[in-house]
């Protein structure tokens, strides 16, 4: 199967533009664009190099090490992997229900993670584009520029993230590489002092989260021509949903809707995820392309993440976020919103929901409890799924009788969004780059589309909005004709060699 613009008719006659982060670490992204003499776009591909080696690396390791070990997979949301692995291994231990303290501690950790990750991506990475314009002065288009022009916005964004990190520290023991969740439960509850420290700030956090939703809504609704159409494509959507169809990031059943909002499947126990999902390998990409089996490769791809979740659920079980969800649904006009830039608005609705849930959990004495672990009848296999900040995350393990991992399969959020991000990038390339002289500002449009999905690209973490890029214009033989480079500090140099 080939999608429009996925593969050019006669690529050998075309010039090649590659947007490539300089740092070659696991999980980096690259966009290649093939242009002809008139700069007409013939082919656009987003390649993401996934850290697949991990699935082999973890084989032969003891299962209890996995929730800690998997945090090496991602520098942005290690907690998501930590929890998805712990959930899968709960099942291996035959544990279907945790103690109330354990489940609430894990939720607290996860919602803290949601808050810090979403705040990082909206305020640090995306707000400069949204506030100043996609091709605004590159020297100012960063969080420092935002801090100068909108000091209150930047300050609150930074504090929201900090608070999320503090929640993680108190639940996992450390901000990164914590150990809080262990198969069958958790290793700690909150102390009264820890709870009180978080309680002290939570009311500001809820209020600021609400302001963040309003900022994202304002940006969207004041420029509908851009926000409703930039990079748009229609697709199915998938997420887990909790009891009664509630928005739930920690646990639930799988639900998918088609592009009109009709249910494709619902109430599916994710232990059987491989009965409903299939992953396609394409020769040009290391990252697989998952799709819904019953619909096939061409029709079965989907998007995940905030935009899918907020529209997939029946309601949000906290009042302030639910009011914002309704407003969003009303704005969309009773039909699903597919515009990638709407990810930001829904992402901030989720931030508000996370803040409200954290507030409720801090008022629940179960998080001070002492029953931390549950036991069950040992199994050979388990699947753990959570809604990570970027979307549905699957961890699947088999464990032998000596307690060692024999099989690991992961479908990370970014993989789930692989086709969707490719579609968005192609749309933007066709609309903005087609027939034009390439400039930094135009290339940033591509980055803006990718950043809307908020993928787990290490380049995004390392450079915090200053993604270093290498842009090559190649001739038909693949020899470089010219190169543009955007340095890590955001400077754009037109001449060859400066990026070395």
């Amino acid at each position, binding site marked *: 199967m080939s999608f429009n613009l996925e593969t050019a008719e006669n690529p050998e006659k075309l010039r090649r533009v590659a947007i490539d982060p300089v740092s070659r670490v696991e999980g980096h992204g690259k966009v290649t664009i093939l242009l002809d003499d008139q700069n007409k776009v013939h082919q656009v591909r987003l390649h993401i190099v996934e850290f697949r080696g991990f699935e082999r690396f973890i084989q*032969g*390791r*003891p299962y*209890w*090490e996995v*929730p*800690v*070990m998997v*945090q*090496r997979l991602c520098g942005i949301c290690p907690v998501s992997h930590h929890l998805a692995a712990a959930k899968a291994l709960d099942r291996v231990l035959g544990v279907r229900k945790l103690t109330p303290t354990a489940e609430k501690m894990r939720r607290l950790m996860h919602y803290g993670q949601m808050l810090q990750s979403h705040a990082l991506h909206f305020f640090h990475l995306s707000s400069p584009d949204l506030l100043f314009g996609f091709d605004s002065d590159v020297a100012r288009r960063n969080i420092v520029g935002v801090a100068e022009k909108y000091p209150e916005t930047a300050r609150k964004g930074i504090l929201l993230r900090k608070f999320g990190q503090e929640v993680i520290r108190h639940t*996992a*023991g*450390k901000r990164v*590489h*914590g*150990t*809080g969740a*262990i198969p069958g439960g958790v*290793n*700690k509850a909150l102390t009264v002092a820890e709870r009180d420290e978080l309680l002290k700030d939570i009311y500001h956090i809820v209020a600021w989260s609400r302001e963040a939703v309003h900022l994202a809504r304002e940006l969207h609704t004041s420029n509908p021509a851009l926000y409703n159409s930039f990079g748009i494509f229609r697709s199915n959507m998938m997420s887990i949903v909790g009891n009664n169809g509630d928005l739930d990031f920690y646990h639930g059943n799988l639900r998918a809707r088609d592009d009109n909002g009709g249910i494709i499947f619902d109430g599916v126990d994710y232990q059987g995820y491989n009965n409903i999902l299939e992953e396609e390998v394409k020769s040009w990409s290391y990252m697989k392309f998952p799709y819904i089996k019953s619909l096939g490769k061409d029709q079965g791809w989907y998007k995940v993440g905030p935009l899918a979740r907020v529209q997939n659920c029946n309601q949000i079980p906290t009042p302030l976020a639910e009011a914002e969800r309704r407003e969003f649904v009303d704005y969309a006009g009773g039909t699903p919103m597919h515009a990638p830039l709407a990810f930001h608005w829904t992402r901030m609705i989720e931030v508000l929901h996370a803040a409200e849930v954290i507030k409720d959990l801090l008022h629940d004495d179960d998080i001070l409890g002492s029953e931390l672990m549950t036991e069950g009848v040992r199994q050979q296999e388990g699947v753990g799924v959570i809604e990570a900040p970027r979307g549905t995350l699957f961890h699947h393990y088999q464990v032998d009788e*000596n*307690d*060692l991992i024999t099989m690991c399969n992961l479908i990370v959020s970014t993989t789930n969004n692989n086709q969707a991000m490719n579609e968005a990038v192609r749309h933007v390339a066709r609309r903005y780059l087609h027939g034009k002289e390439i400039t930094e500002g135009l290339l940033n449009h591509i980055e803006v589309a990718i950043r809307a999905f908020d993928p787990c690209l290490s380049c995004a973490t390392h450079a915090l909005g200053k993604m270093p890029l290498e842009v090559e214009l190649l001739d038909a033989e693949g020899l470089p004709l010219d190169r543009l480079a955007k340095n890590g500090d955001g400077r754009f140099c037109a001449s060859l060699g400066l990026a070395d």
Partner: protein
Amino acid sequence: MSDTFTLDGREIPFEPGQTIMQAALAAGVYIPRLCYHPEFKPHGSCKLCTVKVNGRHTASCTYKAAPGLQVESNTEELNTERRTLVQMLFVEGNHFCPSCEKSGDCQLQATAYELGMMSPHFDHFFPDRPVDASHPDLLLEFNRCILCSLCVRASRDVDRKNVFALAGRGIHSHLIVNAASGRLADTNVALEDKAVQVCPVGVILKKRRGFAVPIGQRTYDAAPISGHVQGSASLTEE
């Protein structure tokens, strides 16, 4: 009135027959060490406890105290040498602290912190020895062995079992299990054995316990290893 020697300018009393290490421990003075354990005969192999006695390098865990000795231990020169030894131990094995269940309870890690080690400095060997998970309750992660021989001594001298041994020489030395199959499941090791309690790093592990103690409550979270001078507590307690 017992005899004394001088350790970093301080008078340290000692009983006849005591080593410098034993006398220092009794006086509450920390000398870095990895292969010495108060309950076992000194082995003198890790060289971390090296001090200068009257100007000459020697292992304090084997050197007998004598009246009037001038001993230097906590000096920039000796600590730099010790740091190098620890760095070499780090790269010879797989010591990835963030994902190791012994983190926070590990003497190698705690000693590295104590000596201000900021990076491994040398290239990693990345050994790739498979774990031995054959025993229902114990796991052996050979890639972390620092060859201190404490388990060998404990099994032989206390448990009277000889479950563990060091085989090979020099860079090829490695820990083995005394069973025809080479598997721990085929020995008479028991959970209560001293040999199972004594590993200073994360080689001999009770299964299904990893990460049960939260960060903040582990052995070296509250005080650095030099604050655990009486030593045996941190070596034997779970």
